[in-house]
């Protein structure tokens, strides 16, 4: 059997609040195998954002284990987590989160700077990926020169630049109109078709319908986990 990209076992996270310890995530188990395309769904406060932050190695769990590419990362220190985010994960955010002063090419190449890759390789790689997402002609432009959908494509190129094992997308279409959202989802489907594993948070059923598997959160627990059926939801 193929080793899962993600294996989460009994994962829990509690926050200190004025009212006492608040359990945002209550013992979650989940396996993600290579090549999967999963939608994480659920209302606000269901724990899906907490879960994504843990998957993204931006936070550490209170209890439980998280194996990322076979390695237990639940208790790693901050530098080790930074290294994982840099080498193993790619992030796509709702707000695109490009750095406004840098050209698109430099934005895409930024993870490679922290990976210590030399300048020529960085630029070549960044241009290649910009071309892949259809923005090859905008390499020297600044982010504010292009549309939101184009910015999100650049962000996807940036997420891909380090050849990650997994792409984490947090409401990637939340700031886009339905037409552009469709385009972005088609890009994700294409990438998944090339074998890239994607975990995507959304609360829109028609966005989730693009994914192969849908996991639903409620009150810090997984309430349903099913494969997408039919050709639309």
């Amino acid at each position: 059997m193929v080793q899962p990209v993600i294996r989460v076992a009994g994962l829990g996270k509690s926050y200190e609040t004025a009212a006492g310890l608040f359990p945002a995530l209550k013992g979650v188990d989940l396996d993600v195998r290579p090549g999967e395309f999963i939608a994480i769904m659920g209302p606000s406060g269901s724990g899906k954002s907490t879960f994504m932050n843990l998957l993204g190695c931006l936070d550490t769990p209170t209890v439980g284990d998280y194996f990322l590419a076979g390695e237990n990362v639940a208790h790693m220190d901050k530098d080790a987590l930074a290294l994982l985010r840099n080498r193993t994960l790619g992030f796509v955010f709702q707000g695109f989160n490009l750095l406004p002063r840098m050209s698109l090419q430099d934005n895409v190449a930024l993870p490679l700077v922290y990976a210590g890759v030399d300048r020529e390789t960085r630029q070549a790689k960044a241009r290649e990926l910009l071309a892949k997402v259809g923005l090859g002609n905008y390499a020297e432009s600044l982010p504010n020169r292009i549309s939101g959908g184009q910015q999100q494509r650049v962000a996807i190129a940036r997420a891909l630049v380090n050849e990650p094992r997994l792409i984490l997308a947090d409401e990637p279409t939340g700031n886009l109109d339905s037409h552009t959202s469709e385009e972005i989802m088609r890009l994700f489907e294409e990438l998944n078709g090339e074998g890239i594993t994607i975990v995507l948070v959304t609360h829109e059923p028609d966005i989730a319908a693009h994914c192969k598997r849908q996991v639903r959160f409620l009150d810090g627990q997984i309430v349903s986990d099913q494969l997408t059926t039919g050709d639309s939801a």
Partner: protein
Amino acid sequence: MIHPMLGEAWLAMGANRLRTALTMLGMVIGVGAVVIMMAIGQGAQYAVQQTISTMGSNLFIVLSGSFTTAGVRSGSAGAPTLNVADANAIAELDGVVNVAPTHQGTRQLVYGSQNWSSQVIGTTPEYLDARAWNIVNGAGFGDSDVRSATRVAIIGKTVAENLFGDDDPVGKTMRIQQNPFIVIGVLGSKGQNLDGRDQDDTVIIPLTTAQRKVFGTPFLGSVRMIMVQAESAETMPRTMESVTSLLRQRHRLREGVPDDFFMRNLSAAAESEAETTRTMSILLGAIASISLLVGGIGIMNIMLVSVTERTREIGIRMAIGARQRDILSQFLLEAVMISFAGCLLGLLLGLAIALAINAFTGMVIVISGSAALIAFVVAAGVGIFFGWYPAQKAARLDPIEALRYQ
């Protein structure tokens, strides 16, 4: 790793040009002030050292003692207690380099239709050695001139100008107290001494000639003053002690009888003058560095603002793999670059103003490489010191919080 970060720091500085420029201005003024103050302070020190070096180094003088007649005391060099034999005996002591017995006073000089009042010093050839005084025109006199009391004179620049005008004084005859003297040499210029007296307004003649023809002496061979040059500043106190005991022995002074001569350390006065200017120079530098400190605080202030403004950027960088030390060095580098750029401009500004001060007021300024080096090191230090806290603050941000920041 450093290379792309330099570019980023440059971009960040360029993103808000006015703010960066104003922040830099604090450093420009600080470094500029330090450079100017150091240039002026070191210039003052240099000027004093120049004056001191014209006096001659490691010198002390022995003056003949005072005498008391009916309760009236004569003051130093009033009594004829020193003589040439004393000087010769001092010359035999260890640690003594030059000994010059002198007899001096103010006399009227006459040449042709010109006359001029000047200080006349009767002494031996060692006097010029002790004072490191060279002859620029003609020659000096020798021991044989002292032995035979020849009427020759070496004159200072001021005397030459006032008495001889454009004529070449060497070989001319002038009169001191009706006695004709042949001018055989002109001294190099020494300028003013520490008291402000013109050292070039001087005529030097053989000691014996002075004693017999110009001043007259109570006893043959008595002198008012003996100038002694010690080997070094360190051995000077010891040399002065041995001169004291030698003279007491020669003058047959018993235990408990006070000295019949006075001693004065010329170098000590000069040293204290040098010390004063050194202190002043340090004080000026210290005051100037306060403005450097203020400039540093300006950098810290702006970096704190910058960290807050760029919280989201920091979150993004962390999400894509920046470690804490990457964020720390990014902001630290930015602070150091602002500091360095400010320092460089301050250095140029300081130099320009220092040169302008020199050009317009004639004040002596000294621009030393060490001052520039100090300014640079301080600027880098200020950048790191005041950049550290904001950079640390940036590096310790929680990536989730930072990403959520609007």
